[in-house]
C-alpha cells in the first residue's frame, strides 16, 4: 500500500474540474495508454489569465490527484505565473508523493507545458519562442525507448528536482524503469549535467567583475542578438549591477506582448547557463 497523503486521497476520491472544455484555448497532453498513464488538460484563457481548467486522466491515484490539484493551482492565475509551476510545486501542494510516484507530478507539469506551448504557438508574434522550441525538439533524442523519454525531459527533471541518481530519474520520469538498457545513458546525462554545473560554478568564481561584464556583453552580441534579429528584433545591453543585467529590447521585440517571455526564457536562461546562474535580466524602456 502506498503511503499517500490525506490531500492525495482527497483528490483521487473527489477529483476537481473533471472533464473537457469544448472551446478550450489551449490543450496539453502527456503520457500514453501504452505507458499506463495519460493526462489531457484543457485551458480557457482570457487577457492572459487562466479562467477555467479541466482534465481527463487515465492513471493511478496519484496521477488523478496531481491532475486535479494542478487545475486548482492554475485557475485564476496569469499565464506568466502558470509558466513558473513545476512538478515540484504540484507534489508539494499534494503534501508530497511517494518517490516511486513522482513521475505523476512530472506528467502534470509536462501536460501543462504542452498546453502553454500550443497556446504560444498560435500567437504569430512569438516566432522567437517558436524557433527555440523547434530547435530543441530537433536536437532532442529519445533516451528510454520503452517509455519514450527524451534527453530534454531528463535534463528538465534534473534541473527542477536536483536529482542525483539513476533511480531517482526513473522515479520522476519512468526512464529506465522497464528493460533498463538506458540506465548507462541516464548516468551519462547525470554526469554531464553536474559536470556542466560545476564548470559554470568554477568559471563564475574565477571571473573578475570586469571579465564578467565583458563576457555578458560578448554573449549578448554574439549569441542572443543574432537570434532576435532573425525575427526582426534586437537587444542592447544598457547596464550591469551585480547580478542584475539591464537590457533594452528593440524592433519587433519591443512592445511584443511576449517580450517578457523572450527575456526570461531565452535571454536570461542563456546568460545563466553561460555566465552566472544568479543573473536576473531586467528590461528598461
Amino acid at each position, binding site marked *: 500500500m502506498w503511503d499517500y497523503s490525506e490531500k492525495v486521497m482527497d483528490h483521487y476520491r473527489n477529483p476537481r474540474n473533471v472533464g473537457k472544455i469544448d472551446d478550450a484555448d489551449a490543450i496539453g497532453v502527456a503520457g500514453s495508454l501504452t505507458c499506463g498513464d495519460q493526462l489531457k488538460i484543457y485551458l480557457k484563457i482570457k487577457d492572459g489569465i487562466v479562467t477555467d481548467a479541466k482534465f481527463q*486522466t487515465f492513471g*493511478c491515484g496519484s496521477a488523478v490527484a496531481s491532475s486535479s490539484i494542478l487545475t486548482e493551482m492554475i485557475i485564476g492565475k496569469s499565464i506568466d505565473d502558470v509558466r513558473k509551476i513545476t512538478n515540484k510545486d504540484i507534489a508539494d501542494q499534494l503534501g508530497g508523493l511517494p518517490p516511486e510516484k513522482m513521475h505523476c507530478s512530472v506528467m502534470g507539469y509536462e501536460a501543462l507545458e504542452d498546453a502553454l506551448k500550443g497556446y504560444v504557438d498560435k500567437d504569430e508574434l512569438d516566432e522567437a519562442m517558436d524557433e527555440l522550441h523547434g530547435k530543441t525538439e530537433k536536437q532532442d533524442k529519445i533516451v528510454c525507448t520503452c517509455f519514450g523519454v527524451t534527453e530534454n525531459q531528463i535534463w528538465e527533471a534534473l534541473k527542477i528536482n536536483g536529482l542525483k541518481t539513476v533511480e531517482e530519474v526513473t522515479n520522476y520520469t519512468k526512464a529506465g524503469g522497464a528493460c533498463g538498457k538506458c540506465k548507462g545513458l541516464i548516468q551519462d546525462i547525470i554526469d554531464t549535467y553536474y559536470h556542466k554545473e560545476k564548470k559554470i560554478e568554477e568559471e563564475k568564481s574565477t571571473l573578475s567583475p570586469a571579465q564578467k561584464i565583458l563576457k555578458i556583453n560578448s554573449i549578448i552580441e554574439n549569441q542572443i542578438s543574432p537570434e532576435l534579429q532573425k525575427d526582426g528584433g534586437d537587444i542592447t545591453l544598457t547596464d550591469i549591477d551585480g547580478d542584475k543585467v539591464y537590457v533594452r529590447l528593440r524592433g519587433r521585440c519591443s512592445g511584443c506582448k511576449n517580450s517578457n517571455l523572450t527575456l526570461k526564457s531565452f535571454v536570461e536562461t542563456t546568460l545563466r547557463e553561460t555566465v552566472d546562474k544568479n543573473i536576473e535580466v531586467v528590461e528598461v524602456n
Partner: protein
Amino acid sequence: MEKKLIYLDNNATTRVDDNVYEAMLPYFKDEYANPSSMYQFATRASHALNDAREQVRAFFNAKSEKEILFTSCGSESANTAIRGVLNMNKNKKHIITTKVEHPCVLNLYQTLEKQGYKVDYIGVNSVGELDLEQLSEAINDDTALVSVMYANNETGVINPIEKISEIIKRKNPNTKFFVDAVQVAGKIPIDVQALGVDLLGISGHKFHAPKGVGALYVNSKTIITPLIIGGHQERGKRAGTENVPYIVGLGKACDIAQHFLKYEATEVKRLRDKLENGILKNIYNARLNTGLANRVPNTTNIGFEYIEGELILLHLSDLGICASSGSACTSGSLEPSHVLRAMNVPFTAIHGSIRFSLSKYTTDSDIDYVNSVLPGIIDKIRNLSPYQDELAELKRRKAC
C-alpha cells in the same frame, strides 16, 4: 459503522484457519522442546513433526514421508529444488521454464543465466495456456531441469502437468521436473505419483496455514544438495531447528484442505462464477483475460478497458474490499504484469486488470456486495478517462 472487510485477495495470502491456529498453540508454550533432543519431553514435539510430515505426504499422495521436506516458504521450496537439482548435475547447463512463472522462480533463473546457464522461457497463448509444442522442442540432452508452475497466481490458469511429465520422460528421461504448486494447494487435488513429477513445492499461507512455513516434495529417485547447510535436520537436506508450531500448522492445514477440495470445486467456484458473470454482464468495458482456459476454482482476472487498476483498487479499498491488480502502478515497478504481457492482453486492458481470488471464507453476501458497488466505481473512473470516444464505441458494440 465499522465497514466490513471483504477479502478477495486469497492468492496473495489467506486467513489462518481457527483449527490450524488451535493446533499450533501448544507448541509455543508447553511443548517447546527441540524435536532432536534425547529426553522424553522432546517426544511429543518429535511426534508432532512426524504427524505433520505424514499429513503433508497424504496431501501430496507421495509414496513415503521421507520424500517431504519442510521449508520456510514457497520461495525457499523453489530455490532448494532448483539449485539442489542443478548442483547434482553440474555438467548440464540447460533449463526450461515459462514466461509466466512467479518472480521467486523467474528471478532465480535470471541469476542462473548470469552464471552460465541457458534458460528457455516457454510462452503462453492469449488465454494463458502454455505452448506445449515449444516446450517439447526445447528439451535436449543437456536439459537438467524443466520447471513449470501448476497454476498461475495472477490468472489461475492450470498447466497440464501430467502431460508435460510425459513429454519430458519421452524426450529426455534424465531431465528433472520441478513444479511450483503454491497456487493450487488447497484448490485442486495434488497427486505427485499420478503427475509424475520429481519435485513439487507449496507454501502454507496460501491455504490457511500461517506465513513462514512451506514444504517441498522430492521423490526418492531425485538427489538434491541442501540450500541451507548446517545440522542434520530434514535428513540433511535443510539445516536449522525445525519450526515445530508452524510445521504442525502446515500439517493441519493440509488435512483440512484435503476435506475442503470438494467445497472449493463446487461452492467457491460457484461464487467465483457469480462474481465474474455479474461483472461481465453489468460493466461494458470488462473483459475476462483468461477466456475459456482451465482455471483453479477461486481466481478471476478481469481487464477494465481504458481505466487504470490502482485507482480501482483504491476505490474498492475505501469500501473494505481487497483485490489486486496487474497494473504497473501497484507493483512499484513501472511495467504492468509480466504474465498479462506474455498473454498479449491488449494494452487498453492490461493496466486496468484486476484479480479477485476467493476462499472458503467468501460468502454470497460478499459477492453480492461487490457486484452491487463495482459498476458505480468503474463508472466514476471511466468518467475521468481521456478515452471517452473509445469507451462510447465499446458500449455501442456491447449493446449490439
